[in-house]
């Protein structure tokens, strides 16, 4: 399979960051960056990275299953990650998560039929002092309220 020239350049740099013979160290960054471009850790991605790093597909599967950000199934174009951990919970994070489930009509790890939105309950994302917080893909949203969620979803629907 082929990656974009930008990703190829990134990969080429990445493997030089580690001591000779230790190129496997690039595995997790490569998986995450490839996933960002392809949309999921597909069997083709595993094969390709296996070939490049000389790590067996089985060993890659082992790694993929460990890390919560790596996933084999595609997600929505906008992946909502709602923190319900302690600081967010104290300020309504769990209720926001329930609200989103209802609003989007999907469960935890679900994807809307149009492929636009997906939802995940996540652990602390490092925004505790500005809680409740969530991430849409990699973008942070702080002090989230139902109204702000409504507006955000409306805006995202409009741009797509």
């Amino acid at each position, binding site marked *: 399979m082929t990656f974009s020239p930008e990703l190829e350049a990134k990969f080429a740099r990445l493997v030089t*960051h*580690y*001591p000779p013979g*230790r190129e*496997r*160290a*690039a*595995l*997790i*960054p490569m*998986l*995450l960056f490839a996933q960002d471009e392809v949309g999921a850790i597909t069997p083709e991605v595993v094969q390709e990275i296996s070939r490049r*790093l000389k*790590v067996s597909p089985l060993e890659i599967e*082992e*790694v993929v299953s*460990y*890390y*919560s*950000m*790596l996933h084999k199934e595609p997600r929505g174009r906008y992946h909502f*990650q709602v923190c*319900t*951990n*302690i*600081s967010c*919970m*104290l*300020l309504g994070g769990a209720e926001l998560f329930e609200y989103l489930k209802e609003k989007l009509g999907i469960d935890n790890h679900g994807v809307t039929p149009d492929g636009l939105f997906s939802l995940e309950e996540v*652990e*602390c*994302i*490092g*925004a*505790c*002092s*500005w*809680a409740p917080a969530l*991430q849409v893909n*990699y973008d*942070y949203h*702080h002090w989230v309220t139902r109204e702000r969620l409504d507006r955000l979803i409306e805006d995202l629907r409009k741009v797509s």
Partner: protein
Amino acid sequence: MLYNEPHPLEVRVLTRRFGLPNSQSIDTYLATDGYVGFRKALEMPPERIIEEVKISNLRGRGGAGFPAGLKWSFVPRESPKPKYVVVNADEGEPGTCKDRVLMENDPHQLLEGMLIAARAVGAETGYIYIRGEYRYIIEILDRAIEEAYARGYLGRNILGTGMNFDVYTHTGAGSYECGEESALLESLEGKRGQPRIRPPFPAVSGAFGCPTVLNNVETFCAVPAILRDGGAAFAALGTPRNGGTRLFALSGHVNRPGVYELPMGFNLLRMIEEVGGGIRGGRKLKAVIPGGTSCPILKAEECDVAMDFDSVAKAGSMLGSGGVIVMDETTDMVKVAVRVMRFYQHESCGWCVPCREGTIWLRKILERLDAGRGQPSDIDLVAEISRNMLGRTFCPLGDAAAMPTISYVQKFREEFEARLPKKVAVETPLVVV
């Protein structure tokens, strides 16, 4: 970007450039004493650098509070192996969001801290292991690294001194356990984040089996000021054996949650009242987790405590990662205990049995207590399972799950008891012959 207003009671050493225009750029950094500490370090023998860090009483900001200078002194400089500097930017402890603002607002301060450490132990390569969710910060750091190369602060023959040092960012991909130092090193090598048996400690055998200095972001960020102004000046900001300031991430039921830089030893009640603006809605304080969810909870009456490692330990908890989680009188402690255990159960790597099984059982029992389906013996069972985990796990994640849980059931036992189902009279079944 700053997400909360600074507070006048703050003592801004590590955050001194926050809010300056282009605080991320090397020009701003250089115009405000940037890389001055490193330039000084270049003129000092390595032992003197470590001595200065020891004098500063800087203790690790990642959670355990181990003296940084002492840790650096364990690195065998004479070893023929390459040495590494590794930054722990995994920031996964619930309640903690301070490393994020340090990297976002002043990335060069972190790079300078790494350079000084590299100089002290003779390292030529550094990695910043950063949690995958912090993607935009990786971009900020990569830009700062590029600037530092362009100006001769990184790379070959740094500032004409013959010193070499390369720095790379390295992304994680979602795992709390990868913040544990030995699991982090496994992850850095492209593996599952399972902890390593210790000893040997990373100082002797760390990244790629080589001697490694591994510290938290904030620990490294304190080092430039220590070299610039002297270790004694930094030490004087704090309390005995607890040098300097630290960033507290105040969260929960306060009027002004935020990340604030305060001297070590700052009183917790005062932090809540004056810096945090008191409890929301004029309610009463019920309890505080003083340093992230791995720390035992303090009841309101235990909160008149100086926030340094030793004082908080004396009060029966830990200063931890500086995540101060404030709860008002309406807080349901059973729900808190359940949510915290769900976290540890989810994040337990499964490598060792007491942690894997212990967290699963604790979660199940706590959930059934919360749902009103518990048995009277469950409360003691929670405490007993937790106690049996203590000290019996491969890495401290098991302790981090067990210690706070013991504190919840001990200190708020009546709330757990109130959740027990009322005794219902069992009807005698009709015997149908």
